């Protein structure tokens, strides 16, 4: 659970980074000499404005936070009713066009929004809360992510869809006033066919006949005018970006007035309520948290209502004032609606190759397994994702909760997960994503995107940008360009942002010399408009400390503590038993003690679940082949003397400790002794010669020529035909290639240094069996005292 303090910290960090952003990337408006916005009229809450004291809000409550709402109720932020920019006055409730930074021209694909509130920040920036309209692309995107949303196939030309998505935004991005009418007005004005005139030539007009509710999706509505629409509420509208706080007196009066409505809304959707209860039951452990959050929701709701009521006290809608004409005629190429086309276009194969990484599917066997063994083998394969992840329940819940709240909040966040290989890090994240996807499809949480970037699967770290940008925009660009685009997108507001969960697997491989990639990916979530949630996975526990060394750590400053860390300890043997057993439910192929044996063996060494599963799978294979052999023999016997009674068929074999032991030996036994035993006579002699020289000299390595002399001497002593020197160097090379010896490069020839790569005990143990070599070994100089 993200605590409130964390959240506040988060905001602070965001505001900070935003400020940095603004310095680093000044609004790149080359075309227009943007007029500075200025406030119209006195602050609304002039009376309640208090002078800021250093004691309040440690680092300044410059951004409205929930804390401020909950706290004293006194706000020190001046709210306004309207502002003036250029010749135009914009008031609360007005429809405005916001500049789309992705396009270079001013009126190219602007965002459309309604002003909810306006205020001035501590730094003197003018900010507002805006409510977005969805356009064609947004709907298309939503439809892909939320299947149950009843979204229309496509929007008509000029049609936009109202939302209840609010977003905080800098006022400087406002470029003009728009107007929204209902279907009747629209058709009355432009005819049944509508119009595809450029924006400027139709007075920035749109029509609206639907609304997207966050959880339930699309619903048709009647556009009743800007002010009236502000009343519209989502029945399940939950913790949005918190709205600015109001004076306590206002809150009180309005809460009384609206509490009835809130109740009604809640009653109206009992099904959702029920769902929520169910969810709560599932996560009993966090039940209390949920309650708290529910309270928070209702509080929030009333906040919004009071605010909208208040805004309504303002003047009535004015017709949109005349807009400044774009200077160039080329601006005719303003957004042309291309209905259906963008929507109907299914992502082509080549594109879909790269866009989104699907979470791994549950394995579905092509042919149903027939025997218990086959079944067990299937289930024990590492790929088979179990129905649940045993022994990682806590981590699962924790991550899920973290991600869920981040998605719901529309804020960014970072999670760092570490642990040795095979402890279920990636599996847990995938499982969480899968469950969140399911929730999103059911409309329980807002839809989100998921991108997986694996350090091993990209050829160079900067390719991560390409992948991320590809997931966000379905365009493929070069790494540098992608970085620019991402920075731009994350630093500018935009309505069409689904929260994006990025899984960065094998994080340590994304480290570059300047650590830019990692720095960026941890920095972006803290930007105001990114909605990026980064889940970093690596097997080094102290990576953040190492990674955030010197300069990066100093730049990240207080953000390190946001990086919540999860350490995955290696599985203990009990957990391994559980994991294997959970996969073998209903399968009789295993004895319980066999599982335990395997688990203990693995648990003692690495705690790698993959190992445990592989051992068990191999054990099943062994039993299976044994059973097959026995069966064959039986049949053979039966064929030979068909009249003999063979007795009943033997019981089906089971995996016992012995088979597991056999499997483990197969997998982990060192081949060295076997290797030496099967070596040829002269290879063995060479090893003995080497050992004797090593012992005599007390060094770790010997020159080849010395060994050769010792070897030839031994041959003469024991009446063995001595090999040629070139044979000996071939022998040396062959032993070197199988890494019995470590040999210097062959260029040194006679003078190459040789050392043993296997332990001396292995050599002695392997050769003791042979009487000849026992004699030789007896004559070895005794091992040096050290």
């Amino acid at each position, binding site marked *: 659970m993200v605590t409130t303090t964390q959240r506040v910290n988060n905001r602070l960090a965001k505001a900070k980074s935003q400020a940095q952003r603004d310095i680093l990337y000044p609004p790149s408006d080359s075309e227009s000499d943007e007029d500075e916005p200025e406030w119209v009229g006195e602050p609304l809450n002039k009376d309640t404005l208090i002078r800021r004291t250093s004691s309040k809000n440690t680092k300044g409550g410059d951004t409205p936070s929930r804390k401020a709402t909950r706290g004293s109720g006194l706000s020190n932020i001046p709210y306004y009713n309207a502002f003036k920019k250029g010749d135009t006055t914009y008031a609360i409730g007005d429809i405005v066009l916001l500049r789309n930074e992705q396009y270079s021209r001013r009126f190219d694909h602007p965002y459309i929004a309604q002003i909810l509130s306006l205020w001035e920040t501590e730094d003197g920036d003018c900010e507002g809360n805006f409510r977005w309209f969805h356009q064609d692309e947004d709907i298309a995107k939503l439809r892909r992510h939320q299947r149950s949303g009843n979204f229309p196939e496509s929007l008509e030309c000029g049609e936009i869809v109202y939302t209840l998505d609010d977003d905080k935004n800098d006022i400087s991005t406002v470029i003009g006033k728009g107007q929204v009418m209902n279907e009747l007005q629209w058709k009355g004005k432009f005819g049944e066919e509508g119009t595809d005139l450029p924006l400027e030539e139709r007075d920035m007009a749109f029509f609206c006949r639907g609304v997207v509710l966050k959880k339930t999706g699309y619903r048709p509505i009647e556009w009743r005018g800007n002010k009236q629409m502000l009343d519209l509420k989502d029945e399940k509208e939950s913790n949005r970006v918190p709205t600015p706080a109001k004076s306590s007196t206002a809150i009180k009066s309005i809460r009384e007035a609206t509490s009835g409505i809130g109740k009604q809304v809640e009653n109206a959707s009992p099904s959702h309520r029920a769902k929520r209860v169910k969810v709560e039951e599932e996560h009993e452990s966090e039940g209390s948290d949920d309650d708290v959050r529910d309270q928070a929701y209702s509080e929030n709701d009333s906040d919004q209502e009071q605010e909208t009521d208040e805004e309504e006290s303002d003047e009535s809608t004015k017709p949109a004032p005349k807009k400044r004409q774009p200077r160039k005629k080329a601006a005719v190429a303003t957004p042309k609606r291309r209905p259906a086309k963008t929507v109907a276009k299914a992502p082509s194969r080549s594109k879909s190759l790269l866009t989104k990484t699907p979470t791994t599917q549950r394995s579905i066997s092509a042919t149903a397994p027939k025997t218990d063994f086959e079944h067990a083998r299937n289930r024990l*394969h590492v790929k088979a994702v179990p129905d649940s992840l045993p022994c990682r329940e806590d981590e699962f819940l924790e991550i899920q909760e973290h991600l869920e709240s981040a998605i719901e909040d529309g804020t960014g966040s970072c999670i760092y997960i570490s642990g040795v290989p095979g402890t279920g890090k990636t599996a847990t994240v995938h499982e969480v994503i899968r469950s969140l996807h399911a929730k999103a499809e059911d409309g329980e949480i807002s839809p989100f995107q998921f991108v997986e970037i694996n350090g091993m699967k990209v050829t160079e770290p900067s390719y991560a940008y390409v*992948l991320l940008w590809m997931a966000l925009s379905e365009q493929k660009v070069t790494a540098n360009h992608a970085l620019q685009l991402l920075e731009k997108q994350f630093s500018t507001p935009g309505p069409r942002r689904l929260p994006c969960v990025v899984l960065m697997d094998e994080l340590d491989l994304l480290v570059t010399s300047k650590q830019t990639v990692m720095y960026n990916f941890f920095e972006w979530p803290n930007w105001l408009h990114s909605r990026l949630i980064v889940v970093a996975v690596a097997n080094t526990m102290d990576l953040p400390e190492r990674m955030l060394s010197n300069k990066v750590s100093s730049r990240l400053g207080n953000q390190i503590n946001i990086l919540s860390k999860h350490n995955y300890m290696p599985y203990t043997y009990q957990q391994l038993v559980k994991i294997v057993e959970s996969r073998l439910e209903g399968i009789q192929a295993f004895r319980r003690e066999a599982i335990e044996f395997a688990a203990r063996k693995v648990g003692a060494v690495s705690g790698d679940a993959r190992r445990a599963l592989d051992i068990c799978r191999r054990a099943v294979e062994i039993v299976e082949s044994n059973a097959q052999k026995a069966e064959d023999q039986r049949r053979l016997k039966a064929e030979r003397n068909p009249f003999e009674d063979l007795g009943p068929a033997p019981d089906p074999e089971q995996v016992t400790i012995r088979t597991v032991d056999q499997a483990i030996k197969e997998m982990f036994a060192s081949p060295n002794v076997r290797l030496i035993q099967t070596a040829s006579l002269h290879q063995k002699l060479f090893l003995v010669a080497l050992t004797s020289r090593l012992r005599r000299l007390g060094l770790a390595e010997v020159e080849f020529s010395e060994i050769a002399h010792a070897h030839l001497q031994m041959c003469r002593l024991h009446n063995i035909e001595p090999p040629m020197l070139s044979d000996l160097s071939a022998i040396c090379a062959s032993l070197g290639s199988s890494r019995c010896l470590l040999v210097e490069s062959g260029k040194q020839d006679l003078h190459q240094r040789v050392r043993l790569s296997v332990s001396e005990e292995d050599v002695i143990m392997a050769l003791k069996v042979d009487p000849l070599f026992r004699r030789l070994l007896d004559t070895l100089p005794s091992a040096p005292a050290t």
Partner: protein
Amino acid sequence: MASEELVSLAKTAISARLAERSLPVALVGLEEQYKKVLGLMRRTIETGESNSCLILGPRGTGKTMLVRQALQELEKQFRISNQDEYDDDDDDDDAMELDDGRKDFMVIHLNGLVQTDDRMALKEIMRQLSREGESELGESNTSFSDSLPSLLTFLKAGTRAQYPIIFILDEFDLFAQHTKQSLLYNLFDVAQSAEWPIAVIGVTCRMDALELLEKRVKSRFSHRHYYTFPPGDYHDYIDICRNALLLTPADLAIQTDDEVMLLRTDSRAAEVFIKEFNERVKILFEDGGFSKVVQRIFDLMKDVRAFYRLCFGPVAELSKDSPYLQASQFYESGLQQRVDNKTELLKGTSLLELSLLIAIKHLVEREVITFNFEMVYDEYKDFMDMAVVRGTSMSSSASSLGMSSGGSVATSDGVSLRLYKKAVALKAFEHLVEAELLRPADSFSKGPKEYRMMRVMLDASQISDVVLKHRDCPTIVARWAARRA
């Protein structure tokens, strides 16, 4: 008597086996491993169960042969059963006919010596995939950074219905030395997740190959390894060798259509020939001298290939007149294999070079490990001075040819021995360096070449050998060589 065609057929069949172009008739001592590898691949093909394994063993113990044999077997099985497989699916008939004659699986061969980095390996995978009919991949992606993700998504998109890919990674240890090991990571990762069914089979002679893997790569590897060891006892080794030489009926039949016809008309003769040939081979292996040759190879390295090398000559000599292998042929090639390479190299060397080598030998025997030309020349000159002194005394007594003024001396063998000038000797010295019989002691020695420090790559015994084998080495020189310091 055997016809010419039969002999030449036998020749090609056997030499194909010796050159490892065709596979041996039977596996000796590797049955267990073969069964396991085959079973692993078959499970991948039949049930789509991805897997990975390593085959480890010293060189020449049949690792690659094992894999090839298994692949051949699978090819046989799954080409025929192709249709049954597809009957289960509701594929339409067209697809069936298209797939006819194709394998039910793909094999991708990679070799660590050829694909020296991941980029090349990836390119090669793409190429082989596109050759196998997955054309959509091959052409479009050219850059490395693009092709990796596209290959991965390609593999990820697969289900169990896809036909499996078997990756054979020869010289596996070299793949493990690529930076990041991302190829291995990705292959193993695909193999252990529910994606395209693949089998990854690594073949290496490094017994410690597993230790080379990074821990996350290692964790993804299934830890199945199969070891191939050289044949344990002499009889197994003999079996393998004999199998390579024995003829089978198939050897004379698997040729083009014409030959099969020929065989049919002349099958009696072929049978007789095979029987006689194999009889002779058996006799060959009972021959004492031949056994000695084979036993030597066995003692040295247990390398089957060394035996194969031995056989090339005799097999190539098979002809109509001598259609059977004879032991005497092997004595000679056995002897050829027993020579020391360096001694052989110096067989026809000049007397001056030989003298220099002897001088070096004396230096080394005096524990002077590194030396330069000047030192060698001094040693050589000392000897020559002595020889001249002795020569004059000899010549005065024998009053033979007399001695020339240039310090040359006629030896009793009739070969004139003379002290060469420094410049000439230096040339000879450099010739030895070029043959890499002498190597600079340190790589960065500057200064005039006469003073550059050198080491000798010959053993003292080898130098003595050379002197002994040298055709017209004067006795005085030979005596000098034999003298101990």
